């Protein structure tokens, strides 16, 4: 599958979702109508034909759901839906959200503080020139 074709499909699925959905709906509806015509040709009266066609089709929503699942970008769509639902959950429960945020903030602050002390005390060399190198020979050393 060419990259161009994939990109075009992905763009259509994500940006023009309403059109894609309407088309799928129309397609399944037309399938049902042609099925009804077929039943009526074999002698069923309109209401029986309609019933039989619906039965043979199975749930239209389920079919749509399965088509949505295989669509390119279906995973992105699903991740987006999960995120939106999580945010709604957080908004419904502001106390817990606040507590969680404070806890996370405290945790991060505490770790940063401890690491800052550790780095300043042990990791960073002392602020002298050529710290950690052997002293040059002209410097006086203790014998």
């Amino acid at each position, binding site marked *: *599958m*060419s990259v161009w*074709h994939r990109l075009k*499909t992905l763009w259509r699925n994500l940006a023009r979702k309403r059109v894609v959905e309407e*088309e*799928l709906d*129309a*397609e*399944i509806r*037309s*399938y049902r*109508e*042609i*099925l009804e*015509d*077929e039943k009526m040709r074999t002698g069923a009266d309109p209401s029986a034909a309609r019933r039989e066609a619906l039965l*043979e*089709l*199975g749930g239209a929503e*389920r*079919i749509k759901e*399965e*088509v949505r*699942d*295989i*669509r*390119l970008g279906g995973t992105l769509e699903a991740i987006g839906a999960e995120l939106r639902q999580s945010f709604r959950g957080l908004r419904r429960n502001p106390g817990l959200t606040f507590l969680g945020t404070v806890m996370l903030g405290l945790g991060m602050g505490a770790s940063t503080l401890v690491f800052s002390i550790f780095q300043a005390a042990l990791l960073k060399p002392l602020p002298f020139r050529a710290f950690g190198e052997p002293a040059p020979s002209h410097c006086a050393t203790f014998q």
Partner: protein
Amino acid sequence: MNMPGSTTALLQGTLDVLILKVLALEPMHGLGISRRIAQVTRGTFQVKPGSLFPALHRMEEAGWLISSWGESEANRRAKFYRLTKVGRRQLRDETEQWARISSAMASALETP
């Protein structure tokens, strides 16, 4: 003929190649494809809309098919699918593969 119980089980990958095969002759809409598959497999495969539509859309996204709206037999608007060049190549490849598989299976199962 076949038992009713044996009509539903479709081998993985069978549906794609059957759809490609029936569309190689002429463009068709969903129900037409399903009926034609039943016809050419002598009723062994009854493709339900629940598996047909996902397959058609997947194959269209793969670039094997393209669809357009048209008029069906009884002046109904229907979405017609037809093969692309890539789809034809896919059909040729899968046909060869199926020939290999089925002859291998036949010789394996005939061995006493």
